Every structure is written in structure tokens, then in C-alpha cells.
């Protein structure tokens, strides 16, 4: 091939609207001190060719969700419930052989630390060629050619020579490009990027974000972008899921989340970041700290830090539709895991939840 742009293979016609559907995923870690419910009832969808941003602070379960999708959870962790449907096929039911066929082929992953994710004793070209040879029926020479082509594709100058470099000979930005080249070498339908730019400097981060945008365009792939940086999500994502203590607390399209956040945690996060060009005397703060995963509060997990906390918050709130007005066709609904009314007011319930609300919250607790 002479073109720097790899041919996009014909994809099977989509069976539904969603490429990936996660339903009621629960991944727990059984430690000596107790069970850590790292992911506890997460449901997410990613549409074909769309980018879902998963935001949250450290320990909220965003990386464990991604690893659960890839079935890379190791002991003492285990996915105890839920479904991960890729094109309607439940990945959690697949045999290990079938799963390794999916991994790296249909779904690829880019990790935060490009240095620790690359093998230091093989050249970059060899590592990409290995990924190609594993998943495509090609000769070694063809795999190597594909590796060089991919390096060109991700904007590495002098790719022929760089393919023969070892990871330590490259800068952080270059290594992350190599990781992306490797992840895209098999032309996946879904790229899971776990904090892909967190370890990079801002000017290099800008390069990688622009690269991911153009590759997303060319390869028509969906991206699950995991990050704590609200700026990166605003720039990249179509849809946003905000996670807190193992649960999705808010989900909507990117404009809605940033302009009309419903959940007090999302509101607090957006108000607490300093923004360029908007100088304020004081930053808003979310008081307190993330709850200890071994000792989560009963009811709403955010209630101890929430400025709106009220008696009903002792009951776990369900993820409810709070869509304001009419949802445009094709756009997703606005979901929030909070007892506040859709307009953000206090619910008209007293100390006890209404029977319907109690039933709804009980339903939210059961595994789908």
C-alpha cells in the first residue's frame, strides 16, 4: 500500500443503534478487609462512531469499567453481574479464546502510561507487527509493513527508522502515538482510551487529541474516553457519563451535562474547576472527601458531601430521566441519579419516600 491511510474494511451492517451496551455491570473486589464494590450497577451505551466520555475522580470505577469490558479483571476482582453487549453479543459469556479474538481486534485499548504499557525489550515496530500478526492472517513481512504504515498514520516522521527504535528511545508523546498506532493497527470498531493524555504536557496533549479526532473521523470508530479532565471531555465527547463511587450518577449529551448539570456532584465538579478567561475570587468547593469504598454510606453515596442532602437521600436514588423539554430525535435522554426533581427542585415527598419512589429505588438495586 502506498497511501498513508489504511483501507477501512467493510463493516457488517449494524444490528441496532448501539455498538456497545453495558447493562447492570458489577465488578467487585474481594479483599481481606471486605468487598470493594468498584463498579456497582453501571449501564452505558456507545452508539456507532460516537465518543462517550467517562468522567470521575480517582477511585470512582471508570478504569475498572473499561477493564471489565475487556475482561482483564484479575483476582481478587470478579465481574459478578451484568452484561457487556458488543453488537448484541455478550462478551462476558464468551470463551477465553473467543474473547482474545475480540480483544485487540474489535476493541482496542490505550492506557495512561505509555512507558509501562510498551515492552522495553522489543522495538516499537515489532510490537505493532505482533498485534497485527495475532489478529490478521498475514506474513511477517506484511505485518511489519503494516506497522510502519500505522506509524506514518499516527504522524510519526521517519516511520521506517522509528519502527526500529526501542520505547526508551522515544519521548512520551511519541510513545503514546505508538500505543495508538498499535491499538488501531487491527482497525477496531471501539477504542477504549484510559486517560490517554494525562501523562503528557499540554502542547503534546493537543497533538494527541487532534490525532485522535482525525483518526476517529477516518476509521469511523467509536471511542470510550476515560478521563478526569473535564476540558478533554468537553472537546472530544458526544455523550458524557459522570461516575461517582462505582455508579453512573449522570448521563447526557455533552452540551446538556456542561450547561444544565442536574446531579449536585456534576454541578460541584463544574463549578470547582478554574477556567481560562473566567477569573473568580473564590472557587466553589465540594466539601469532604470521596467515601471509603469499604464503608459506603447507605442510600445516596454523595449525600455526605451534598449541599442538597435531605431525609429521602437515605434511600438510594434510581437513575431517572430528567430530560428537560423534548429530546431531539437521536439524542440521548438526560439521566441523573438524584432525588431532586427534573427541574432541580426539592421532591414533594416528606421524610418517607412515596411507595412508587421506594419501589423504583428497590428496582434500581436489583440486577437487571
Amino acid at each position, binding site marked *: 500500500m502506498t497511501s498513508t491511510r489504511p483501507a477501512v474494511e467493510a463493516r457488517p451492517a449494524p444490528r441496532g443503534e448501539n455498538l456497545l451496551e453495558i447493562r447492570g455491570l458489577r465488578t467487585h473486589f474481594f479483599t481481606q478487609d471486605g468487598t470493594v464494590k468498584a463498579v456497582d450497577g453501571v449501564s452505558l451505551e456507545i452508539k456507532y462512531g460516537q465518543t462517550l466520555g467517562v468522567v470521575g*475522580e480517582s477511585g470512582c470505577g471508570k478504569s475498572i469499567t473499561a477493564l471489565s469490558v475487556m475482561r482483564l479483571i484479575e483476582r481478587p476482582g470478579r465481574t459478578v453481574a451484568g452484561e457487556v453487549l458488543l453488537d448484541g453479543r455478550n462478551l462476558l459469556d464468551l470463551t477465553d479464546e473467543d474473547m482474545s479474538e475480540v480483544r485487540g481486534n474489535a476493541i482496542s485499548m490505550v492506557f495512561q502510561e505509555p512507558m509501562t504499557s510498551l515492552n522495553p525489550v522489543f522495538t516499537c515496530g515489532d510490537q505493532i507487527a505482533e498485534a497485527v500478526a495475532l489478529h490478521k492472517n498475514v506474513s511477517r513481512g506484511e505485518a511489519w509493513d503494516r506497522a510502519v504504515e500505522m506509524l506514518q498514520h499516527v504522524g510519526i516522521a521517519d516511520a521506517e527508522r522509528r519502527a526500529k527504535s526501542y520505547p526508551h528511545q522515544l519521548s512520551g508523546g511519541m510513545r503514546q502515538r505508538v500505543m495508538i498506532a498499535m491499538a488501531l493497527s487491527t482497525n477496531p470498531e471501539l477504542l477504549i482510551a484510559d486517560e490517554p493524555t494525562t501523562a503528557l504536557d499540554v502542547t503534546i496533549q493537543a497533538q494527541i487529541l487532534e490525532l485522535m479526532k482525525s483518526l476517529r473521523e477516518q476509521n469511523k470508530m467509536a471511542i470510550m474516553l476515560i478521563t478526569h479532565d473535564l476540558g478533554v471531555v468537553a472537546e472530544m465527547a458526544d455523550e458524557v457519563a459522570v461516575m461517582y463511587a462505582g455508579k453512573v450518577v449522570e448521563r447526557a449529551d455533552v452540551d446538556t451535562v456542561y450547561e444544565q448539570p442536574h446531579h*449536585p456532584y456534576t*454541578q460541584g465538579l463544574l*463549578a470547582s474547576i478554574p477556567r481560562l478567561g473566567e*477569573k473568580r475570587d473564590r472557587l466553589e468547593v465540594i466539601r469532604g472527601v470521596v467515601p471509603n469504598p469499604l464503608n459506603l454510606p447507605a442510600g445516596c453515596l454523595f449525600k455526605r458531601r451534598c449541599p442538597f*442532602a*435531605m431525609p429521602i437521600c437515605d434511600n438510594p436514588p434510581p437513575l431517572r430521566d430528567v430530560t428537560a423539554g423534548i429530546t431531539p430525535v437521536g439524542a440521548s435522554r438526560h439521566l441523573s441519579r438524584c432525588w431532586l426533581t427534573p427541574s432541580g427542585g426539592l421532591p414533594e415527598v416528606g421524610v418517607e419516600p412515596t411507595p412508587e419512589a421506594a419501589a423504583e429505588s428497590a428496582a434500581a438495586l436489583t440486577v437487571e
Partner: protein
Amino acid sequence: MSEGSVVAAALEAPVAIVPSDDDVLISVRNVVKYFDIKGGLLGTSSVGAVRAVDGVSFDVRRGETLGLVGESGCGKTTLGKVILRLLPPTSGEVVFKGERIFDVPTAAERKAGKKSFQASNAKMKTIRRDLQVVFQDPYASLNPRMSVGEIIGEGPMVHGLSNKTKREALVRELLGKVGLNQSHIHRYPHEFSGGQRQRIGIARALAVNPDFIVCDEPVSALDVSIQSQVLNLLDDLQKEFGLTYLFIAHNLAVVEHISDRVGVMYLGKLVELADVDELYTNPRHPYTVALLSAIPNPNPRVRKKRLVLKGDIPSPAAPPSGCRFHTRCWLRERLGNPERCAAEEPEFRDVAPGHQSACHFAEEMTNMADEVAAAIGLADQARLASTSAVVAPPAPVSPPTPPTAPPA
């Protein structure tokens, strides 16, 4: 120094200080720090040098916060350490409150007969009471074998507060000031979260009642919701104790929030220095524009015409000739790659009152104001502000009065 006066000084209500040009607290002149690269047969001969900091000069005024931004490897942390003399300087001069901390001549000056000066260790001990530091990593910067009381009390003890009861009273007072529970005085660092540890680090710096604190990336290791708590704390303490900060960080939005003036570093050099509003709205160095353009804006509707810099930061062991930024500079490309950029080192000079820049073509940038505004997103922010379709960023969370008492 008597014991009583330390406590009194630490707890004394300070006077608000208005910064003025004549009120320079610390003055940094031509500070250079090279790290030798060892090589050769025995690994002992010097085969080159990493030019971490290469001739940086600025003043910090009393009561202000000077922000220092730059990417990794630009020398900002090394500069902070050299100012505190935690690292020996290669050459340069630092004067703190009219007293020289060091004045090391360059090779040429030494030939001309200039003598090297370093404040004595005894002198440094007294200077360091006024010169404190808060480090980036709240996990590595606290001794795991010392209790919180010992960590915070160590400074006052070294500086003469030997009475244990008075020391404990001071530590408890400080714990309250930084928002920690006073009963945690006997706990150990591992019992605290990252944000709480950073508060301990801040209390330790405050314990000797300093005038000047170097904050080296104090919030970069913290989660977003904790970051704002620590930034507000630093702000409050500055007002309460009349502190002066040198705030080193790579996050431009954080620096904009906390600083009065901001300096931008690139490869060991200060390339721009101005008042914070001036720097963020009217940058006069192409690197500053590129940095501002690179940051993703946490508003999905703001579109920037992003200037993406090519390539990586060159090695500080072999910096490019002339202007160190010329290998990646978009402005040089726009101007048809003038020879001057690669040949001649630009002077760090005044381009407007109180605004210094080290670009040969800083004056030319005034003609590109529209382009620069588009690149850093200001143009789009202005457009959004003028259209009514856009909702303002979320209002601060203000809780309504709950109908019944909130749960305990």
C-alpha cells in the same frame, strides 16, 4: 530568639500589604543551573551539561503571587529549588529582603575578579525561617515515621521553640488554620488522604511564620474536587498572614486563578512575564499563545482555532541556537522563517508597561490580535457571550433550605 516570640509571631494577626514596584521581596538575577552529564571511561569526566535553568531574572513583590508555568523539563522546579538554595547555583544572584542568599559569578566575571558569595549555613538557617516550600507529592514529602505533630513542630523546634507544651499548642492552632481536626495531631501521614496531606505540608511551611512560600505544583497530584479546596486555603492563608507566593504549576487555568503576575518558561528561559489578565488576553510570545491554545476548554461550545505545535520539546542538554523556541514556532513559520530566530538570541525586554517578552517579533504580534484571540478561544468566548442561546456556566451550588433537617 525566645520561645514566646515564635508563638506570638506565628499567631500574630498580619497587616494586609499592598504590592508596589518598590516593595520587592525577592529578587532573582541571571540565575543559571547546569547539571553535569558524566561520561568518559571512568564515568567521572564531564561530557556536557543539562541547561535546566539558563539565565532567569525576575522580582517577586511583597504580598503578591507570581505564577510560573511551563511544560515538564522547562526548569521551573529547578529554579524554585535554586532560589531556596536547596540546589547549589551555577551562577547568578538571589537577594531576599535586601540580603544576598548567593551571588555566584559566571566564568567570565570570575576572570574579571568577581568573588563568589554564599550566605553561611547559620545565616541560611535564619533566612529559611522566612523562606518555605510546599512540595508537589503529598505522599513523598511527609516522613511516614513521624506523627503530624512532629512533622509540623519540627521547624519551630529547630528555630528555638523547645517547650513541648507551647509547640503542641502552636501545632494545634496551625491544624485548625489549614482545616484539619486538631485531635489528629498524633496521627501518622498514611492515615490521611492526598488533600489532607497537602494541608499538613502547608501547615509545616506556615509553622515558622514565613514571608515567602514556594508552592511547587501543590495541587497537581490532587483530584479536581480537592484541588479547589486547597487553592482556596492557599488564598485564605495569603490574606490572613500576608504571604508572598511563587506558585509553580503546569496547569494554566490554576495559575490564572491564583496569580497576580505570571511568568512562562521554556527550556530553561523565561519567555514572557506580565500581569495575569494581560498575559492571558494579550500574550506577546508565540509559545504562550500555543500553550493557551492547547488547553481543552471545559465548555463544549467554545471552538478554538488551535495552533498545534510540531514535534517535542528539544533536549535541554542541546538547546536550539538563537531563540530556543524557533524549532517549533508557528510565528516564525508565518513570517517566512527569518534567519534571525535561529541566529540571534532574543532579548527579554519590555514590550508594554509591565509586560516582558523574549521574542524578536513580539511587536509584530499586535497586528495579529484577531488570529491570537481565535487561537486561544477568546474570540469564541466573546461570540458566545453575545448570543443569548448559550446558558452561562453552572451557577455556584446554592442549597435551598431543606424542608426538614438534613441527615446527620
